[in-house]
């Protein structure tokens, strides 16, 4: 039996590309910036944008899905939940577990922010699964880069360059993603373990072929998820012991609904991205570890500069997740900033796409 199928489409599917192109061309002609929006669930991420709203939520629908090819192509206004449901029906998933941060999350917001969930250190980030994009350039032209094939090195990799660029280089209208089968078995558990011991174990396990797919630590407890074949998961479960953990923990961690992320907490929330084996940082903060130590969430009143300098010394960087920060992202070195500016200038000479969303200067 041939399993390949193009999706028939649903009543809500709509292709607004032509109208979106016209809007972008007008903006380029008038020099009036546009503020690209989807479900608004990640509006807090980055700096505020002043510009006319270009709403992509109407541009939606899965344009092609063939489970046997492990590829799905989807318009960026499509609700992320809808895409995940279609994949789940075929026993597949977005392996990088993108955070939604609200019911309206769209595929476009996932690509623009490039954020990944707990499985990231083991399977890769959003950008690792992006195979191709369709994008509206500053002149209002609808172009295609990459494609629906796993390997493609023709031309520069604009698909991955634009993933995580926060809409500052163009309007991404469609994306082709590699998808993977859901693991045969999954088991989550929790061990009472002080931080130093937990970190030592994670470092050791990282050098062994162990079926880990998530690892977090907070307040004396190490949280683990085992995923893989039935027998290896069972064997490791028996070996590690500990208490069973509701897998909803990982969703709550990803979605920032654990008590740690309580919005009533007056202290700013920081994300530190560090080499995973970095020893605990000397910062006055409540810390929650994710990604086996490579992503650490901080609740801290310390000045941004102190947090940034400490992260940089450890070989990483810090992002402020609490809205209103003047500069949510770590500043770039002068050379990197120069080439960011030049890239922005070449791809968006009038600065119409989400100006200032990532850094004030572009």
């Amino acid at each position: 039996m041939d399993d390949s199928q193009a999706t028939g489409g649903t009543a809500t599917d709509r292709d607004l590309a032509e109208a979106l192109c016209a809007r972008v061309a007008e903006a380029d002609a008038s020099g009036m910036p546009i503020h690209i929006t989807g479900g608004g669930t990640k509006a807090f991420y980055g700096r505020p944008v002043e510009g006319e709203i270009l709403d992509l939520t109407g541009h939606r629908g899965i344009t092609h899905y063939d489970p046997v090819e492990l590829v799905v192509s989807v318009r960026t206004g499509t609700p992320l939940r809808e895409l995940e449901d279609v994949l789940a029906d075929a026993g597949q998933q977005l392996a990088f577990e993108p955070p939604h941060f609200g019911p309206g999350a769209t595929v476009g917001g996932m690509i623009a922010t490039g954020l990944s969930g707990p499985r990231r250190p083991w399977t890769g980030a959003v950008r690792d699964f992006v195979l191709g994009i369709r994008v509206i350039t500053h002149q209002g032209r609808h172009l295609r880069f990459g494609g629906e094939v796993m390997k493609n090195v023709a031309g520069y990799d604009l698909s991955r360059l634009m993933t995580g660029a926060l809409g500052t280089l163009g309007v991404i209208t469609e994306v082709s993603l590699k998808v993977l089968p859901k693991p045969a078995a999954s088991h989550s558990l929790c061990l009472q373990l002080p931080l130093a011991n937990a970190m030592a174990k994670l470092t050791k396990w990282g050098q062994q072929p162990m079926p880990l797919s998530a690892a977090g630590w907070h307040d004396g407890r190490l949280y683990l998820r085992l995923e893989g074949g039935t027998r290896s998961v069972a064997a490791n479960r028996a070996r590690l012991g500990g208490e069973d953990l509701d897998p909803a923990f990982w969703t709550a961690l990803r979605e920032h609904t654990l008590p740690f992320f309580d919005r009533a907490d007056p202290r700013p929330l920081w994300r530190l991205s560090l080499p995973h084996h970095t020893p605990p940082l000397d910062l006055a903060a409540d810390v929650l570890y994710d990604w086996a130590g490579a992503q650490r969430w901080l609740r801290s009143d310390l000045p941004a500069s102190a947090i940034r300098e400490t992260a940089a010394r450890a070989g990483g960087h810090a992002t402020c997740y609490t809205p209103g920060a003047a500069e949510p992202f770590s500043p770039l070195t002068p050379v990197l900033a120069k080439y960011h500016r030049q890239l922005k200038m070449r791809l968006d000479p009038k600065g119409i796409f989400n100006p200032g969303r990532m850094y004030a200067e572009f």
Partner: protein
Amino acid sequence: MNILFDERLDGALPQADPQTTRERLRAALPGMTLLDREEDRRPFECDGLSAYRVMPMLVALPETVDQVVTLLKTCHELRVPVVTRGAGTGLSGGALPLEQGVLLVMSRFDRIVELDPEARIARVQPGVRNLAISEAAAPLGLYYAPDPSSQIACSIGGNVAENAGGVHCLKYGLTVHNVMAIEVITLEGEKMVLGSEALDAPGFDLLALFNGSEGMLGIITEVTVKLLPKPETAKVIMASFDDVEKAGQAVGAIIAAGIIPGGLEMMDQLAIQAAEDFIHAGYPTDAQAILLCELDGVEADVADDCQRVRAVLAEAGATDIRLARDEAERARFWAGRKNAFPAVGRLAPDYYCMDGTIPRRELPRVLKGIAALSKESGLRVANVFHAGDGNMHPLILFDANQPGELDLAESVGGRILELCVEVGGSITGEHGVGREKINQMCTQFKPDEITTFHAVKAAFDPEGLLNPGKNIPTLARCAEYGAMHVHNNQLPHPDLPRF
């Protein structure tokens, strides 16, 4: 077809004076090896695409990053083009020199700087061989996953420049998925680090952009790669088929069963025969196609997956299914595949290796198309296929001593690539565009897309001094090549001069 740099189509190159360039570089870099005698430059006149040769004006072999910085600053000031070369194993002519350019050879950057088992990274200089990283990491139980067939010789800097693949890409990814950071020197001699030892870095993903950029945006002087724990076990199943199409469907059936093999390779009859004659791998020479399916991971899971794959293959109509009994047989099965190119090379004086990718479902149609092209041209074509990820390597057999046969082989190759694009694929999966596929770029991309590529290039190298003429064609070349997309019955850019 001649793909050498043609100023009429590829744009005017600055006319550097060889003597001034040599004197200025000698003065600025007294300690650096700079080859200018013809007999010394000769070994560098081509890379793995040896049908094309150009004598570089000068060959520089720096040994330190400071030398690279000074060399680039000097060349930038003198407006001398710079072509960078690693081990020179690339098959697309990405390191093909220019008569008016300096060839920057990075082979002396051959040191593994740091191997950190706790961080699971290796920090290496760009001239380090791909396999040398895994060899150095082996005592720690770790390895570097991407394994292009040339891994014994190719260097990591070239792997990044081409975003090299290998037989394990479906499960472990390409170079771009396995590189954490690179140190780059810009044309103006600035040093920057893209990526980091953390899992992401602020700003645009320039690390991804530089992977596969073919030395057009900057010079890589250090690479930090991710190391993985060696799988506990790896098993290989070989399945024979009496029909290529059935083998293709079996590939889809394995993936539909929710299994992602470590490697999934297909060879057709001609490739099987050639490999068997050369390596004695134990391949069934009467089969029309074989699949090699490697399952790796934790022992217990691999045993289960082997059972499931055997059942899927039987259901798909395999005429024979064999599990390699031991490590020696597994190595033999792979040796046949990894030596398929030289094995096929014994069937004819020359062969031309293609590198198209296609959605797997299109395999029967593309194989039929290739067979028709083979029949029409009279040239035999052997097919070796990274079946798991849709990357085909048709090998076109010919004899360059027969007048017109190289041209014929190239024309057949070009048409195979166009067929790949037609079914929704790409002209290159892992070998790069280089000079080889510069014309086919015009088939895959519309003029506006090519213009966007030029805009990216201009952000890093507005004067076009880094590896000019590679990877991205000019619109003039596309107009001349004649395979441009015609939209709404209008040729794009009617204002362009056509030669």
